[in-house]
């Protein structure tokens, strides 16, 4: 039966995440926006709390750590599971601060990759560790099949060589999941991911980026210089299977795209809510019964932004819900990511304009949210990549036909 409200059983989780956002994240939001590259030590205690919740059978973490496709749906009934729970708590946390969420210990994208493709032994060995993800290279961003970092088997170890950039939480994490190719001639099928200890001497931190937004989150660049990795730290199968291609590594993204969409939804909601308050102070309030054209232009604009926000939020929940119910959600995950990514930027930027100097000034957080929002339309697949994924599925075209 159709019902698109937050499930009753997740209401305590949402409340809890919101409390954390209000009590822990918002108070230090500006501090770490200004103090880029400084470690937010306030988060250590919070991370321990979140771990405790997870161990206690709490349905989800605050980040990308716990999501994977539901294994089965035995009774055939409707399921509200960890994907939806994660999306909902991420919305709340990012209403607090998206940069801080991205640097939440043990909730990295690498954790998600491990959860999605690691075998039992690997899961056990890497449990409880904070894992970052290293895909992008200076010459390969969205086109991740074009990566040049190589992995060569030498005895019981792979030797990795190359350069990785834009590694979120790369400095702070304990593990880095590195994408490398076993054979550059083969293409996608030869790309494998390797779990590299952050302390590995072959993994050299080159620099930390200075960014437009999400400054609380460190973004690292690494040089892999004869970096030796035990061969059992390769995730998934070491075979080069040209038929399966990208399957394993890309599967991670079907689960994480809705979560990045959730981040955009959280930031957008922060902007919208505060703009609504400031507009009310200025004497403008939205009346939902009166047609937009018969209201103040600012109220009409807020209504428009709110409608895009709501579409983005529900698309995000839908994609997560599909994952929980073992419905293939690659298409819907991209719907969510594309809509939330662009709506988040549009909403945050237009809220700045609606609030004037309060929107632009650093006294308020509106300008920060507008800067933070932009990354969410870029990482985990840019807007354009999402549109490609959607269009290829919609039109039944291959990547050779629709380039």
């Amino acid at each position, binding site marked *: *039966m159709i*019902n*698109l409200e937050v499930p009753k059983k997740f209401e305590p989780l949402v409340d809890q995440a919101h409390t954390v956002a209000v009590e822990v994240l918002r108070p230090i939001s500006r501090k770490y926006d200004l103090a880029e590259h400084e470690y937010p030590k306030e988060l250590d205690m919070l991370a321990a709390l979140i771990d405790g919740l997870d161990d206690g059978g709490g349905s989800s973490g605050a980040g990308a750590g716990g999501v994977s496709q539901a294994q089965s749906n035995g009774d055939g009934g409707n399921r*509200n599971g960890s994907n939806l729970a994660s999306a909902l708590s991420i919305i709340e946390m990012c209403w607090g601060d998206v940069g801080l969420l991205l640097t939440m210990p043990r909730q990295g994208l690498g954790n998600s990759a491990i959860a999605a493709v690691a075998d039992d032994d690997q899961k056990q060995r890497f449990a409880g560790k904070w894992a970052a993800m290293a895909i992008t290279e200076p010459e390969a961003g969205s086109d991740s099949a074009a990566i040049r970092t190589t992995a060569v088997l030498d005895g019981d170890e792979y030797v990795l060589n190359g350069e990785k950039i834009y590694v979120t939480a790369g400095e702070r994490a304990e593990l880095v999941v590195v994408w490398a190719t076993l054979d550059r001639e083969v293409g996608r099928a030869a790309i494998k991911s390797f779990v590299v200890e952050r302390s590995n001497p072959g993994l050299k931190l080159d620099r930390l980026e200075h960014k437009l937004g999400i400054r609380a989150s460190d973004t690292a660049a690494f040089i892999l210089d004869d970096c030796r990795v035990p061969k059992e730290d390769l995730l998934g199968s070491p075979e080069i299977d040209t038929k399966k291609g990208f399957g394993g590594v890309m599967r991670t993204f079907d689960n994480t795209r809705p979560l990045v969409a959730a981040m955009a939804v959280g930031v957008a909601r922060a902007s919208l809510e505060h703009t609504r308050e400031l507009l009310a102070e200025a004497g403008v309030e939205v009346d939902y*019964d009166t047609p937009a*054209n018969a209201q103040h232009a600012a109220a009409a604009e807020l209504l428009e932004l709110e409608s895009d926000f709501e579409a983005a939020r529900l698309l995000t929940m*839908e994609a997560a819900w599909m994952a929980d119910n073992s419905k293939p959600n690659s298409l819907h995950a991209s*719907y969510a990511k594309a809509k939330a990514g662009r709506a988040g930027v549009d909403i945050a930027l237009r809220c700045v304009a609606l609030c004037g100097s309060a929107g632009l000034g650093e006294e308020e957080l509106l300008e920060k949210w507008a800067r933070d929002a932009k990354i969410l339309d870029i990482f985990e697949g840019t807007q354009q990549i999402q549109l490609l994924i*959607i269009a290829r599925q919609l039109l039944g075209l291959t990547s050779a036909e629709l380039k």
Partner: protein
Amino acid sequence: MMCHRSVLQTRTPAAPEHTARRAPRMTLAQQGTQVALRGLNRLARLDLIDRAGLRGVAERLVYRGTRSGFRAANAAGRSFAAVQKLGKPARQPRSKSTGSFDITPTDEQLMMQEAVGDFAMKQLRKAATDADAKCEAPSDLLGQSAELGIAMLGVPEELGGAFEERSAVTSALITEALAEGDMGLAFAALAPAAVSTAIGLWGGAEQQSTYLPEFTGDNVPAAALAIHEPGALFDPFRLRTTARRDGDGFVLDGLKALVPRAADAELFVIGAELEGSGPALFIVESTTPGVLTQAEPAMGLRAAGTGEIKLEAVEVGSGALLGDGDAEIYRECIRLGRIAWCAMAIGTAQGALDFLIPYVKDRKAFGEPIAHRQAVAFNMADIAIEVEGMRLTTYRAASLADQGRDFAREAAIARQLCARKGMQIGSDAVQLLGGHGYVKEYPVERWYRDLRAAGVIEGALLV
């Protein structure tokens, strides 16, 4: 055959005044040129009429125009009378939410969706072009839609209705399925359902037993919920149509716009400002003296035979007022109407998307299908994303309505999104077909017109 309003009533502003007002600084030479062009234009127009042998047609149009000024509404309308008496109003029970997030319709909803969808795609789609041109829905199709039970969705079982529960979601799904076939014909088919749903939801025992049984039989009356009024910046909460108290009854005066099946409707529910109270709904039979109608063909939704309804000192009894004039009921009516228009936009937008997919894959330019180009493919992706967003916001509003929770915000948001994105999808669809999108050989230009209309009209439909 084409449909027209009144040719005589088409007003052309007097040209010299117009020129003087709009271009006061025009040079003499420019003015001379303009006058000459205007003269030439006028001459050419007359010439064209004769050359094309259209003189007779033009004269007939003038005749038709004169005839189609305001005239009495359907005077042959049936007389409504209570067959059985109800002790108290019958209400369909609301469905209970499980409290879980779920996007799967119930089995009953899926069955209805399938049956109505099949009818829409096979019958309505086929009849759409002709009905659009004639401004009229074929009566056999309207009969078939009644057989599907569309007009009795909101009729309680005690009065012959077939649906156990009251469900705005079910109505939205059915509206969407019908509009996927054709929005104009869907409008015509759904117009009586708005009236029966209104009386089912808010009618008293007497009103229900008088009117509702008629909507469950073979011969469902044409009926319309008339809220919209002429003029820019129309606000359904600031109606110009008035209801004055007169003894036990009321006297209604005013003008209603874009009323579906206005000419043959036998029953109206009309929104009017009740003096000293606020906007309220009144049941008005078409045979009541002072109820006049005139065709009002519009850009879109032409198959529904839209018209104006003029109320000239229309006297109705105390039993005409729905829901005791409760302001909350009127608000609910407007909100449910907005959800219905969202469902219309979703159906047509989905129809457009499904039509576009094979088109862009077949159509070749520069040696390959245009679908292989990002400019085209990304536009297709955008349409798919927005249709899904429209659907989710609309379902959420409808589901909240079913749960008896406040849905003013959700209805407004869904309407905003569906009006804006629906219009964009209509425009994109024509654009993707290029010249083919602009000609009537393809259905796309009709969707462009209908999708604009769906974002404008208030009332006339309910979920």
